[in-house]
């Protein structure tokens, strides 16, 4: 996972609330066997509408999604975050996230920042008055800037740390690699081994 500190990216005013993971990516995409390439599934139902915000040329390279309240509810599918990530989103802001979705974001290197309802509306209005405007996301100081707006966002300390270090769950475990090695050095000889293959 990439380390995140400060970045600039085109913001999308996503005026939808109660967006569940099935709207983020429908179940049909769950049959795939890869862990990447889910960008085509992102909001695939909404995207059938030519007027949908992501279909507008100004938002082609969007990296920051500003959504309404209750984003990522419903099934716990990790595919929802994969779809956002694969599409190019590095941060999502909303007044409220579903817990599992929020934690999945942290594991996949996507910022899920909580901002107030009032700030959400301010950002929407600003982005709509200047479509394609870039937002500056400043993780260390937990601020998102857009033109003259400077808005604080919430993110828990642990997730902030892992995002800025670029650590996924495996990365965190591997910080203890010496302890794993030490454990393995004591592993008894009778314990099972699948290799070399025996008995056939």
């Amino acid at each position: 996972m990439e380390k995140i500190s400060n970045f600039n990216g085109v913001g999308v005013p996503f005026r939808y609330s109660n967006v569940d993971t099935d709207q983020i990516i429908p179940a049909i995409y769950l049959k795939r066997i890869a862990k990447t390439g889910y960008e085509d599934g992102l909001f695939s139902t909404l995207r059938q509408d030519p007027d949908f915000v992501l279909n507008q040329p100004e938002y082609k390279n969007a990296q920051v999604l500003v959504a309404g309240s209750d984003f990522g509810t419903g099934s716990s599918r990790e595919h929802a975050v994969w779809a956002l990530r694969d599409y190019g989103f590095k941060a999502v802001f909303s007044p409220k996230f579903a817990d599992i979705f929020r934690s999945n974001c942290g594991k996949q290197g996507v910022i899920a920042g909580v901002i107030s309802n009032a700030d959400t509306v301010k950002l929407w209005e600003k982005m709509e008055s200047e479509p394609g405007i870039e937002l500056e996301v400043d993780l260390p100081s937990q601020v998102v800037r857009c033109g003259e707006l400077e808005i604080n966002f919430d993110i828990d300390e642990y997730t902030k740390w892992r995002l800025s270090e670029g650590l996924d769950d495996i990365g965190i475990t591997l910080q203890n690699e010496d302890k794993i090695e030490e454990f393995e050095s004591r592993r008894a000889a009778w314990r099972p081994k699948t290799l070399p293959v025996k008995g056939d």
Partner: protein
Amino acid sequence: MAEKLTLAEKLWRDHLVVKGEDGAPDLIYIDLHLIHEVTSPQAFDGLRLEGRDIRRRDLTIATEDHNTPTKDIHLPIAEPTSAKQVQALRDNTEEYGVRIHSLGDKNQGIVHVVGPQLGLTMPGITVVCGDSHTSTHGAFGALAMGIGTSEVEHVLATQTLPLAPFKTMAINVEGSLRPGVSAKDIILAIIAKIGTGGGQGYVLEYRGSAIRELSMEGRMTICNMSIEAGARAGMVAPDQITFDYLKGRPHAPEGKDWDEAMEYWKTLQTDEGAEFDKEIYIDADELDPFVTWGTNPGQGVSLLGEVPSPDSFDLASDQESAEKALQYMDLVPGTKMKDIRVDTVFLGSCTNSRIEDLRAAANLVKGKKLAEGLTMMVVPGSQKVRIEAESEGLDKIFKDFGAEWRFAGCSACLGMNPDKVGEFKRAASTSNRNFVGRQGKNARTHLVSPVVAAATAIRGTLSAPSDLED
């Protein structure tokens, strides 16, 4: 004096790599990682994406089971998603150098049958697999847990898992089973008693004289269904039956390693005076054959009983789910369970597809004919079980009876391959889940033991072996 520990706590202690601080989970070492085609493709893809390797390919083994066909196995897999998943497993295991048992191989079969058969599953180890019925391996006195796809990736990369602590529950089954009553009936009775959520957060330890009397196959059947009570794992302390089963299997320890292992294995019992967070008691002497009437494994009754009325439940939520279940199952309260006619019988799945299960069923159907209008499918748990059964002539007994004799796999347990129970058809099934649509769209499942399956196949209605004696 040392702290008194339960069996599960001993295994946790002996696999602790890093103790979690401030509420963080403990990091637990994994001795054996079993993989199959459904839950592993994205895990391998994740490794590839991050440029990671498998930490211990020598503790990892793959088999094809969930999607594989059970007939015409020489032909390419027809269903595109199934074919893709199986191919992905073959490609991934080749790329990463993981041992695989593919369709046609002697050790191919349901992952939870293959581990024990190879002697890889043994007492005192931790086992994980991206499949909820991994609890099966607990029958050996192992701590065995089902995991999700991201955890599969985690174990591939680190051979460890961050795990939250569990609570412990003792399930004491005292007494002796009557003839015709078997391990499956014990576990169905347990789930009916504690409910499908009753084990949530717990590791169950099955104890008592009735458990000690069971073969390894029977213990596996019980541990297998721990997950249907919502438990994280289920286990049985190892004893002479365990050691005898294991000794001489391909990957069982040998010589000095065996002696050393035995020394440790003999300590693998809950200490006298250790406390469980919860204890429940089941009287084995009183048990009848058990069958389910509803759409979750907790909705079961004695085969001598009747379809219950929704009003007989105390909780409104139970009443409601009973009502829905009866509608789906097309059953009327008050109907005698033994009057329920079935269309098909499925003998298979990781719950009941081992050699002992096949023998028990074959013993009853030998020389008899399948009831008029019924179909029956027998699906051995692994190719090895199939070969062993054939060497004993069991295939012939089943075929003469009128059943289909198939190749190994999960088959109609979940119907990911072409083996399904037909729409609105009623099945007596030795598998573990009777969920809505589990065995096929609108399929109606009654979970039963292998001998009840056999007696039912003979009579056409849900039957106990004792019903065969005139």
